[in-house]
């Protein structure tokens, strides 16, 4: 352990918390919480220099001074109410590059920051900060569901985790073992010859038991208990007759109230336990259980430093009587245990109240009391709610809530059955909505397919612009260093700017739509909007596709111009138009889709499209064209279809749209467009045969039909007929008394009583009707219908001798086969 004494012995907590800049995640854990102090003094500076940070305060639910709440409480930051007794005091600041932790005895109050004498351990090291973050994640996971947005941000930080080197700092929590047990284990291992133990703490319970435990483990010869007069709870009875125990009065300069908690072990080495635990059984000798025992976090640090700090205080001897006389009275913490513990509650901009309990609640016969800053009270029956899922209750709140609203649950009999909590009415959407972690395009499309509400869409949008930072592996780093190509990835600034842009729009929409609950009949009919407002709202809405397109362009297309990305763009646009039309009950769907198509044209012109399967994209495009009435650029479509085989599986499949939950309410329009496109494609490709496939089953049926219309062949076994008409074994027919004429191409021809036109029609029907994928909705069916009058006649002409009633059935079969074979080979 290093022996260097501290040069600067004081830290200005206000300056220290205000000094952090550009953090992404800031977490405060505290026992007491003074919202007025935090909102007015800490938060303003913090928010100014950390505009995108998620800020979280976790405090003991019984020690939040709700009287001092402000309109900002739970607005810029998330307030989590941990069940009592939640005692850790950690301030953690984190970005993907930096990390700082302050751990000590200081609460998030003005006294803790400015007046009390507190001990603070400052760790200016990201790796250790990440370790604390893991501890915090661990304890938050005991309080919150894992889909809480907080975890997204925590995990993002944890991704950039490195194994830290050896340090002399040991973090100790009572999540799994009592703090004292762990401390003594560590101490005795590091220094088996502890001689003196010095204890500084304002609060004591069962000190005898704890001291005995310490002396038994360390064999210490002297234990000094330092108390500050009128600021301790030590009773002389507890230490009377204890060998080796020496009580001392401790004094601080400027009569400062000592709130620090220290156990200093002195032997050949000096080690000290500092942090949140007082010298109480609950803090040092118990394992944390939610709502049942204390949660404490401490660090074991170099005792020389602590010794040096303690030497700045004065020590006097104190008598047992003086200890009792100067003991604090009325210092009992409020126990405040209720059957229901509200950990957090969020009122979202859509008017839903989400309440999360420490355990699954039984809400039968209960009411939620909502008390505004102006002391207006609303009672809401939640007892009949069926919307409890696990620990969460979500319901559409019948009253509009304002920031600073307190929430408490009462039984029908008027008994308070929950802690008092504050409703978080967060300003930023990202603080409210869970964010999808995936960035896989397929996954996004799947999620988009399910998105039916604006909330869903917002979640997804946030995901699109909030991807987890890609952590470059060492090999990737090497590659990128070797590569002299400029980095085409948008800068993190560019990404955050794009995200900010889209979020700005969504935030605006949130505010527009947040009154939906109050105006269920929609925008058009509400009297709360003036005509000018409605025009303004519509204009703002019209800007969204363009804004979205720009963001898409800046962020997505610069790195990926695949068909999937364009599909996301189109599907998102369709969803947005649907959802906005629904919310605002205004017929803007076509308008928005038109805008989306126009923007799509621009995008694809500027960024092109990489090779790949465009079938889904085409389906979406045809859908949009049919709905918006805007004609697509044919050249563009042909380009998109260049790699597509024209059949119903690839070009246009309604099941794609069904998968994407797109309703086909203009089917005929859609088919007409698809048909035109197909014909264009076929014409552009120039070979009709390539576009028609028949499978063996259809072929079989055609054979059956042809055999049935040639009287002399009816009795011949089918395989013989098939081989003969296709020229493989014509001679075999002779054995059955059939002697057909053989044409120049070596195929046998027959006469038939059926008019040849009918034969052609029937052949067509067989191809259509029996083809497994052919039906009236499929593209091939449309294609064949269209071709019947013109092109199919040409096909069938191969089978006929013009002007004669001779029929060569093998020609059509072989023609199909010949055209299909190379394609199958290519497919294989």
């Amino acid at each position, binding site marked *: 352990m290093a022996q*260097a004494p*501290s040069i*600067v*012995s*004081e*830290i*200005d*907590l*206000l300056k220290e918390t205000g000094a952090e800049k550009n953090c992404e995640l800031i977490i405060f854990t505290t026992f*007491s919480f*003074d919202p*007025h102090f935090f909102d*007015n*003094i800490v938060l*303003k500076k913090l928010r100014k220099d950390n505009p995108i940070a998620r800020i979280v305060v976790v405090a003991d639910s019984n*020690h939040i*001074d709700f009287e*001092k709440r402000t309109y900002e409480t739970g607005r810029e930051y998330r307030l989590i109410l941990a069940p009592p007794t939640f005692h850790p005091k950690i301030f953690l600041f984190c970005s993907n590059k930096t990390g700082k932790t302050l751990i*000590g005895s*200081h*609460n998030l*109050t*003005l*006294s803790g*920051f*400015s*007046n*009390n*004498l*507190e*001990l*603070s*351990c*400052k*760790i*200016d*090291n990201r790796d*250790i900060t990440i370790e604390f973050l893991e501890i915090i994640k661990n304890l938050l996971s005991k309080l919150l569901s894992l889909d809480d947005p907080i975890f997204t941000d925590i995990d993002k930080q944890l991704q950039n985790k490195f194994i*830290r080197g050896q*340090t*002399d*700092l040991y973090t100790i929590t009572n999540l799994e073992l009592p703090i004292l047990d762990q401390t003594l284990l560590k101490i005795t291992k590091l220094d088996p010859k502890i001689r003196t133990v010095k204890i500084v703490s304002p609060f004591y319970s069962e000190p005898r038991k704890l001291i005995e435990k310490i002396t038994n483990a360390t064999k210490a010869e002297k234990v000094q208990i330092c108390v*500050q*007069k*009128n*600021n301790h709870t030590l009773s002389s009875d507890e230490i009377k007759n204890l060998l080796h125990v020496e009580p001392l009065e401790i004094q601080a300069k*400027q*009569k*400062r*109230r000592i709130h*620090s908690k220290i156990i200093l072990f002195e032997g050949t080495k000096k080690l000290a336990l500092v942090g949140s635990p007082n010298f109480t059984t609950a803090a040092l000798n118990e394992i944390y259980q939610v709502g049942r025992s204390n949660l404490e976090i401490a*660090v074991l*640090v*170099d005792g020389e*430093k*602590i010794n040096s*700090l303690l030497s*700045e205080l004065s020590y006097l001897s104190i008598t047992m009587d003086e200890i009792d006389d100067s003991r*604090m009275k*009325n210092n009992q913490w409020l126990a405040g245990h209720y059957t229901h513990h509200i950990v957090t509650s969020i009122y979202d901009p859509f008017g839903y109240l989400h309440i999360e309990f420490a355990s699954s609640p039984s809400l039968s016969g209960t009411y939620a009391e909502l008390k505004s800053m102006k002391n207006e009270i609303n009672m809401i029956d939640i007892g009949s709610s069926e919307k409890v899922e696990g620990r969460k209750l979500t319901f559409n709140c019948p009253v509009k809530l304002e920031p600073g609203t307190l929430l408490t649950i009462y039984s029908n009999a008027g008994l308070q059955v929950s802690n008092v909590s504050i409703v978080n009415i967060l300003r930023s959407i990202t603080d409210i909505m869970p964010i999808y972690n995936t960035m896989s395009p397929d996954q996004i499309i799947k999620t988009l397919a399910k998105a039916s509400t604006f909330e869903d869409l917002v979640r997804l949008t946030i995901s699109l612009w909030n991807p987890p930072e890609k952590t470059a592996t060492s090999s990737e780093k090497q590659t990128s260093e070797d590569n002299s190509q400029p980095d085409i990835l948008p800068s993190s600034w560019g990404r955050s700017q794009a995200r900010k842009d889209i979020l700005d729009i969504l935030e605006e929409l949130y505010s527009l739509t947040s009154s939906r609950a109050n105006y269920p009949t929609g925008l058009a009919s509400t009297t709360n909007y003036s005509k000018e407002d409605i025009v303004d709202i519509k204009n703002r809405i019209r800007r969204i596709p363009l804004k979205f397109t720009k963001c898409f362009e800046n962020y997505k297309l610069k790195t990926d111009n695949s068909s999937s990305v364009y599909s996301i763009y189109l599907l998102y646009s369709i969803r947005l138009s649907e959802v906005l039309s629904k919310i605002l009950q205004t017929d803007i769907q076509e308008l928005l889709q038109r805008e989306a198509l126009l923007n799509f044209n621009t995008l694809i012109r500027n960024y092109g499209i990489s090779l790949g399967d465009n079938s889904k994209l085409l389906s979406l495009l045809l859908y949009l064209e049919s709905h918006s009435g805007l004609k697509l650029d044919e050249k563009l479509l042909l380009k998109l279809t260049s790699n597509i085989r024209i059949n119903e599986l690839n070009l246009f499949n309604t099941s794609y749209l069904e998968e994407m939950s797109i309703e086909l309410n203009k089917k005929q329009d859609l088919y007409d467009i698809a048909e035109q496109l197909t014909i264009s494609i076929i014409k552009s490709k120039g070979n009709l045969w390539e576009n028609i496939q028949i499978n063996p089953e259809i072929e079989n049926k055609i054979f059956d039909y042809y055999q049935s219309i040639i009287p002399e062949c009816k009795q011949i076994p089918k395989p013989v007929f098939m081989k003969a008409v296709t020229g493989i074994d014509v001679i075999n027919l002779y054995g059955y008394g059939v002697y057909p004429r053989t044409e120049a191409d070596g195929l046998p021809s027959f006469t038939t009583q059926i008019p040849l036109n009918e034969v052609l029609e029937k052949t067509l029907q067989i191809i259509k009707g029996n083809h497994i994928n052919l039906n009236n909705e499929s593209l091939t069916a449309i294609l064949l219908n269209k071709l019947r009058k013109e092109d199919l006649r040409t096909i069938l002409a191969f089978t006929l001798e013009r002007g004669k009633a001779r029929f060569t059935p093998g020609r059509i079969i072989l023609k199909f086969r010949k055209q299909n074979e190379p394609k199958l080979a290519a497919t294989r």
Partner: protein
Amino acid sequence: MSYEVYWTKKIPLNAIIDPLGIRSLRALEDIFLPGITTQTHRIRYFTFLLWAWNQVKDRKINLLQMEKLLTLIVQYNHGTNVPYGSRNTEKTQDFLQKKTEDATIDLAEFTDFGVPGSNYTVGYGDSLYKNSLAMLELVGTNDFREIKFSEAGRTIANSLEHAKGKEAFFQTSISKKELKELHDHFCLCRETITDLEVDLWRKIFFGFTRSDKTGTLVFDEDKFQSFQNNTLQYYRSPQEWYEIACSNQPEKIALGRGSLLLMILRIIENAEPSSQSVNQTIRDAIYFKQFINSKQEVQVIDFGSLEAFRTIWEVYVHNLYIMSFLEKTFGIFLKLLEKKPMGTRLENLISDLSFNKLEENFLSSIGSVDLSRSEEILSKELPGKTTLKTRINERDIFRKAQSSSTIEEKLSNYLVLLCLLKHRKMSFSEPQLSMLQYLERSTYNLSPNTLYTNILQSDLRKTIGALFRNLINNHRTVIAERYGAGTKCWLLTEEKGLLIPYSTPYEGVTYSETKWRNVLEFLYDLKLVEKTDQKFSISEAGSRWLKHQV
């Protein structure tokens, strides 16, 4: 080392001014006295600056250097008896003493002149007078921060143009002989002020000005003539004065400023107060229309056509008492808290008070310990307003509270004062009530109306509890607001009901209307008031001015 361990620092605080944020209760003086602050004292400094800014622009000279010379002139010629309000006295004295009589003084060597906060790069003119001159509409700044004069401002600036010896201000050095010669034309003392200057400044302060078509301030000779002819209407109904106060129209406000100065002149004429009692005398005269003369007799004062104007200022004095009540009781609370450095709860703090003493005082003063009924009880005894002759009045109880020896006695006297103030408020006319409401706009939960409703309760313990709680809450709000502007000014901290003193002394000021002293200094420079070591009195010119006989 991956970590460091520290004690947390006790945060050092900035100056504690108005810790309850109640200054707006006396906003009337800001409304009607623009340009006269407690920072500015001498009218010559105004004239000098207007002249100097002109020179700065034309000659590209440094204003600070010119101000240095002005200060050296004052100091050299007046020694230890410099005019009230001169700045930098001690440092200038030290600087001069180091120079022999025949030495040439290099102004660049005079380095510690100016505002310390600016590292001596800004003079007092720039920091203290500029805003006042702008409020008087004599100067302004353009987009390039250059000084722009109004026509009236230019006229005053030119009044020094012919002063003898002005070239000295463009030199970088000076001899003591020259300092002596410059006194008669440039010193800050009253003797050097010319008749022209007096005439111009009187017209400015008494509002004989108007804005011309271009918006620049010009002297209004017609208005002045009308004042002399006694046809200028000073009488306005209380309602009109209330509306003027709210109007924010410079011309109307200037009329109000003139009325206020006439009102002060009238009080000085009648009361001739000593410099020690000037604030209280003006308070009494406005509030009671009475004052205590040098023979300790109660004397009545008639405000004539300014009576309606006085009624508006009666609200101001009422508010001054409210401010005193709040600041003094906050001081008492902090003193009690100071005895508990480890912190205490409010209920424990109140329990330590001796309520027998408190009750005793209430029974003798108001006849009841039910303070919610105080107004009703007082109204029976005093159907009208209190006067300086009634058994109990605001002035006496306030003075009694100040001289009380125990905390209980002080506290009870201040609470009696609050009861009397509530009683006074009941006599307020509609315009007065409107003015009260207008002035208490931003005083959080310590506005007079709230105090009367929420603080005075049926039980003394509850009353004191409510009072202290409101004081704490208000202070907390102020802390937050000030911190937003970078000022740390908390006198206590509170954590879950545990109140902990910050050990910063605070008692609250007795008289917050310190501006009257400055007003009198201006009137002295305008030669309308005389002053001796003993008292202020009206000058002969002042008497004529009051009669509008200029």
